[in-house]
């Protein structure tokens, strides 16, 4: 039976809660537990219906340490003080900058029992992260501590029509603390998302954000923040990584930010995939880099030295932020099958072509990508054009499927180079999945093929001096090598790129380089530039391994490498994904594509360089057009030296505007194309070109940002304290091997 002794009750002035410190005396031998009980009866902020309980295991040495650490606090009154509204900087609870933290002060008399008061003072940098500012709304238990976050909830409402998705993301911020805050949240979106709407909601008032040049938007936001106006700013750090800042959120107030984007769905081996990323994986930045994505422990802002930083919850912490998602799919043709392997969902088939899906309320922790897949009826999907015309002119997208003929063409000898990421973030289940996939790949090699195994983390190493013939002995030897590798250290992917691409091509074989990685790096530009520079005759197939991989990097590695991308989740079959890959490369690709647009006058088609067409992998082209599509479009190319042609019936829709998302999708593709150019051919005019497209189409980009200011009311006091929204590490990723603790 638990025996508890009441040590101290006190009133938390900042949150108007009654709190009590008790000691669990029932455990004489084991670590004693100390509990801070918070009465919900007088809760002013937060709405927990039951007492909130913090349980802290205390060992004798820890007590001694804390008593020594805090001996300087003896003269200070053990009071609870509200969060000081520091003029700038980060919440003291987050970077130890002073202010409201929990500290322990010995209470007289000091006898046999350890007697503490949990108090909030303005000191103790190292313990800052253990508490949140001001409210006493911290919810905790020994096994998994709930950490109150200024981002309360994310609501996602998505619809899919054909292969075009429209998604509205509503981020609900609140201030559970006793003084004003600025909330900062780094979050992912699909890298091909055309973000074109931003609305800040305060109560029932909705303020549309304005797209502006990034530096100008940042300046407006800073001015508004400093003058006490509620304001929000959305900036792009990477094509799939954004920062949301909301300034001057007053205590107890809520502010919603609505973001809307359009994107095209991927089509993989007969399945359309809708992906919604929920968390940013912890990134590795090479030494000397400062414009990467830093990964810091909660409360340790600035330790990584990177311009963008994500704070991660520790393994025993759980965020109070949750997520809901609703997806409505209208496929226009009968849906044969659908599935979601990543999350528990509730789905309903409203009609043969219409499915609605919602996230199960039991699966609302935002720590992995949601992937929903559906397969439509028909043996073979046909290439098709969809178009839209408005006062800006005509826009189209063309999903181009490979012709059936290439399925019947014979297999060519292969030179397969498997490049395995063995860095710390791959530790555990991800590396096991990657190894299983390679193992299956080695098993699928045939006589006449050759292979090489390369691993990289801080450095790169390889199985053989050169690719080896795929004899049974060599394959067995390769398997032994594969099983011996471990995952630890940094992600110097550039070393893997060099090792994989910097050796002579065997002209008798088609070389495929397979990268198996989570892509958790901050130097994407360097990697993509290196691929462009060194590719030669190789084709790169990238495999994203894990629950929340860097899809921007993986997709663009494959695109630059003129191959294709595949994703292997933690619950997917590694063997299956490799078999699908072998099925793809066992048939020659359709290369040297050229499109005869017929009567359509077509301009500005993206991607600028037409990619090769592999079995099971269509490509999406988007462009502008004028004139009427009265005749079929013909795509000409070659496969295994033989000429091939695909005919596409073209109906541009004339004046009927049925796809209003297309101008945004086209502009996003143009921005992606210009951004890609800048990775291998830096041009001082490219940023201006990107910025102008983004401004003309109201789109987010690296050089534009959305800003919204409520000028109607000035909040009281200074600009408040910055509170970063800490996030969990993605499912399957180990905190200890990825996040910097200082």
């Amino acid at each position: 039976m638990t025996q508890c002794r009441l040590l101290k009750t006190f009133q938390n002035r900042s949150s108007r809660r009654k709190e009590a410190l008790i000691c669990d005396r029932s455990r004489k031998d084991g670590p004693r537990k100390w509990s801070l009980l918070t009465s919900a009866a007088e809760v002013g902020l937060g709405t927990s219906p039951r007492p909130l309980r913090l349980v802290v295991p205390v060992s004798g040495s820890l007590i001694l340490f804390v008593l020594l650490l805090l001996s300087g606090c003896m003269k200070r009154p053990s009071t609870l003080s509200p969060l000081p509204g520091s003029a700038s900087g980060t919440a003291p609870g987050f970077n130890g900058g002073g202010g409201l933290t929990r500290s322990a002060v010995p209470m007289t008399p000091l006898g046999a029992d350890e007697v503490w008061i949990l108090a909030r003072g303005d000191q103790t940098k190292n313990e800052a992260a253990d508490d949140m500012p001001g409210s006493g709304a911290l919810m905790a238990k020994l096994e998994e501590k709930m950490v109150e976050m200024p981002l309360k909830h994310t609501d996602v409402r998505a619809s899919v029509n054909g292969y075009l998705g429209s998604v509205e993301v509503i981020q609900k911020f609140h201030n559970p603390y006793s003084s004003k805050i600025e909330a900062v949240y780094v979050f992912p979106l699909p890298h091909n998302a055309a973000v074109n709407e931003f609305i800040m909601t305060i109560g029932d008032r909705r303020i549309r954000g304005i797209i502006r040049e990034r530096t100008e938007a940042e300046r407006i936001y800073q001015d508004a923040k400093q003058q006490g106006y509620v304001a929000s700013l959305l900036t792009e750090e990477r094509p799939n990584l954004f920062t949301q800042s909301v300034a001057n959120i007053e205590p107890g107030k809520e502010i919603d930010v609505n973001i809307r984007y359009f994107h095209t769905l991927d089509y993989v081996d007969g399945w359309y995939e809708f992906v919604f990323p929920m968390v940013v994986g912890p990134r590795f930045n090479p030494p000397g880099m400062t414009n990467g994505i830093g990964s810091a422990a909660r409360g340790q802002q600035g330790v990584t030295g990177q311009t963008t930083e994500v704070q991660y919850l520790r393994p025993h912490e759980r965020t109070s932020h949750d997520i809901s998602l609703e997806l409505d799919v209208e496929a226009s043709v009968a849906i044969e099958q659908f599935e979601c392997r990543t999350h528990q969902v509730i789905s309903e088939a409203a009609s043969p072509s219409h499915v609605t899906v919602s996230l199960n309320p039991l699966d609302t922790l935002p720590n992995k990508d949601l992937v929903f897949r559906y397969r439509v009826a028909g043996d073979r999907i046909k290439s098709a054009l969809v178009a839209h015309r408005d006062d800006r002119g005509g826009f189209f997208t063309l999903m181009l499927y490979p012709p059936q003929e290439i399925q019947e063409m014979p297999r060519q000898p292969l030179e397969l180079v498997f490049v395995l990421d063995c860095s710390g973030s791959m530790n555990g289940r991800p590396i096991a999945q990657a190894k299983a996939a390679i193992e299956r790949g080695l098993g699928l090699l045939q006589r006449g093929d050759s292979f090489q195994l390369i691993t990289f983390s801080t450095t790169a190493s390889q199985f053989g001096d050169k690719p080896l013939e795929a004899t049974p002995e060599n394959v067995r030897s390769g398997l032994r090598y594969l099983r011996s590798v471990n995952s630890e250290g940094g992600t110097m992917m550039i070393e893997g790129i060099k090792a994989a691409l910097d050796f002579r091509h065997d002209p008798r074989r088609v070389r495929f380089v397979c990268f198996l990685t989570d892509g958790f790096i901050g130097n994407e530009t360097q990697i993509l530039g290196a691929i462009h520079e060194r590719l030669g005759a190789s084709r790169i197939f990238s495999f994203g391994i894990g629950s929340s991989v860097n899809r921007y990097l993986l997709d663009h590695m494959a695109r630059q490498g003129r191959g294709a991308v595949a994703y292997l989740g933690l619950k997917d079959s590694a063997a299956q994904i490799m078999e699908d890959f072998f099925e793809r490369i066992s048939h020659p690709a359709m290369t040297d594509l050229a499109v005869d647009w017929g009567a359509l006058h077509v301009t500005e088609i993206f991607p600028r360089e037409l990619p090769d067409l592999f079995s099971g992998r269509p490509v999406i082209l988007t462009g502008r057009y004028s004139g009427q599509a009265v005749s079929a479009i013909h795509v000409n190319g070659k496969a295994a030296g033989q000429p091939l042609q695909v005919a596409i019936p073209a109906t541009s829709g004339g004046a009927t505007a049925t796809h209003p998302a297309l101008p945004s999708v086209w502009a996003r593709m143009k921005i992606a194309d210009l951004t890609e150019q800048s990775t291998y051919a830096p041009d001082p005019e490219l940023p201006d070109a990107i910025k102008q497209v983004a401004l003309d189409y109201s789109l987010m980009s690296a050089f534009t940002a959305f800003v919204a200011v409520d000028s109607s009311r000035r909040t009281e006091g200074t600009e408040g304290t910055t509170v970063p929204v800490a996030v969990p590490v993605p499912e399957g990723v180990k905190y200890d091997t990825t996040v910097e603790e200082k």
Partner: protein
Amino acid sequence: MKVAWRIVYLAIFALMVFGQAAELRAQQPATEEGRSRFRTIDIFIDSRSTPLAAYQVEFEATNGVVKIVGIEGGEPEAFRHPPVYDPKAIQRDRVIIASFSTATASTLPRGKTRVATIHIQVSGDQEPKFEIKLQTAGDSQGHKISAQATFEERKAP
């Protein structure tokens, strides 16, 4: 000798004072409040007795340095959602906003109605002057109606 020391002390003192003043200046916001301030402009349309279902308005400052930093929806439910704006016009800080409602005529606003609010940032010493032009307004049948657009700068509370 004493004079020399006094000069040294004075120089050190002056440097400290100057340094502190410089530090204080550095701590001040990049744009001082007196030079950069935020204002709220309410946009009204008076459709008299006709229900207002759609409008398009052009609003701009004719002088001064003005940046549009937010566009808010109006007072009646029919126009509560913020109007859309022309992205090309706003690059020159001239805003063309438009909105419509598919509500029934009986629920649409009549008379003078606040249909939107423009949030702006004004920089520099010059007080801006504004101009508004109603480009079009319509009723629930899609017919063009006669109406008048006006604006009022909201007084700080």
